[in-house]
């Protein structure tokens, strides 16, 4: 077994330095899809999370439970819903988005946004009273108060984003379903890993997994440096 793991380390290394066009294509698409879905989800999730977390209103408890529930939305279910919408028979069928990267982004946004929202809501809970009292006392407008609160809670918020990123980059059920795992078109790291696993090519699968993890590590490292900077 350890031989197998060593072997896949070697394979991963060879894959990367061989400048295999396919693997770079897959990495490229993975990064594009993840970036797009994280970008959109970050906006939706942080905005709604900070907003809901810092406000009290009727039905907040229910809403919180719903959002927390959606943190556990099975990707396949999200994928199915998107599939039904984007399918030719579906209401958005005419957009011809099924089996395109765009569809994958949509599905991922549905999966990741609640995660970022839910975690952001909890993140601002510890500081929002103090920040809002002070901002209000200085006559600072709503939007700016909102931004200041996000800034003051940036550590847990960035962590929420990273959790969202982690889900986006490791998720496979939804992107498989609405992307179709089409070679040279919608194949990303995770679907490639599943493909290799299905073939019993565990070494290849591990190698791809390792590459993905190294990529993630790089991104995390950059984010952390950036976070320390501000």
């Amino acid at each position, binding site marked *: 077994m350890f031989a197998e793991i060593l072997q896949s380390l070697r*394979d991963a290394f060879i*894959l990367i330095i*061989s400048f*295999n*066009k*396919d*693997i770079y*294509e*897959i990495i*490229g*698409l993975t990064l*594009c*899809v993840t970036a*797009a879905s994280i970008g959109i989800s970050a906006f939706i999730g942080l905005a709604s999370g900070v907003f809901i977390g810092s406000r009290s209103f009727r039905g907040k408890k229910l809403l919180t439970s719903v959002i927390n529930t959606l943190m556990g939305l099975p990707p396949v279910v999200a994928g199915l819903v998107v599939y039904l919408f984007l*399918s*030719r*028979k579906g209401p958005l*069928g*005419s*957009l*011809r*988005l*099924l*089996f*395109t*990267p*765009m569809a994958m*982004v949509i599905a991922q946004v549905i999966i990741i946004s609640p995660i970022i929202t839910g975690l952001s809501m909890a993140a601002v809970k510890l500081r929002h009273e103090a920040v809002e009292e002070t901002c209000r006392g200085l006559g600072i407008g709503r939007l700016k108060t909102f931004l200041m609160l996000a800034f003051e809670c940036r550590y847990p918020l960035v962590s929420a984003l990273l959790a969202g990123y982690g889900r986006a980059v490791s998720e496979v059920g939804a992107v498989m379903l609405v992307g*179709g*795992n*089409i*070679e*040279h*078109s919608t*194949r990303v790291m995770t679907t*490639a890993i599943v493909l*290799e*696993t*299905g*073939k*019993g*090519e*565990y070494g*290849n699968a591990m190698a791809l997994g390792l590459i993905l993890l190294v990529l993630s590590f790089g991104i995390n490292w950059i984010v952390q440096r950036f976070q320390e900077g501000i």
Partner: protein
Amino acid sequence: GNSANNTGTNPTTKPTTNPAPSAAENSSGSKLTVATTTSVRDSGLMAYLQPEFEKDTGIKLNIVAQGSGQAIRTGEDGNADVLLVHDKAAEEKFVSSGNGLKRIEVMYNYFVIVGPRNDPAGIKASGTLDAAKAFKMISDKKAPFISRGDKSGTNTKELNIWTSANITPSGDWYVSAGKGMGDVLTMASEKQAYTLTDKATYLSMKDKLDLQIVLENAQDLKNQYTIIAVNPANHKGINSEGAQKFIDWMTSEKGLKMIGEYGRDKYGENLFTVNFSGK
């Protein structure tokens, strides 16, 4: 790397939204979405045919490999233009309900029964050429058997054999796994169990498996693959022209020859036998 066996196509790495798709799809140089079963992809056949097809026709293939049921569903929903599947009953329903145009048989191979090298049910030793008999031996011995249990073409075939053997498999020895072919083979190897598999997938994974073929070339194990064009009348924007070209190319002399030869250099035998009998 396995993902390297395909070159010369135009990679689309950027998210594209395909503006004005129907216009593009109806001319040549368009995109054709083929839904196939995973076994076709896993055998490597599609990756082998794709570059030649694209070169000859100028049509870009989008191959979506799914479970048989899901592939047919993708066709029903109009999300694929043409299907390449192997589940006769479901195919006939698909065509008779007006979702598909016509079943076109192109090739077949044989399912095989694989099992542990020590063959505890003694199938190999018995020399039988009847799958139902082999299944009976397995159930008599209560030797572990793994079923795909996913209503795929392979699974349907397996269930039919049980029926023809007059056995309702149940008990600890009969494991319904609900997974794809490759996974089930790995599982059978891991659990030292019997299973029914298409030969192509087995051969492509043979080296990693601690299994052997215990029964092959049984007449009741024939595995027919069919191409069906999706009925363009049911959905807007089906690339029926491309689907026809795909059918034409697959059943052309060149296509059939390529299919018939596939696997010979790698496994020393062909994985599929063509049996196209004219449209």
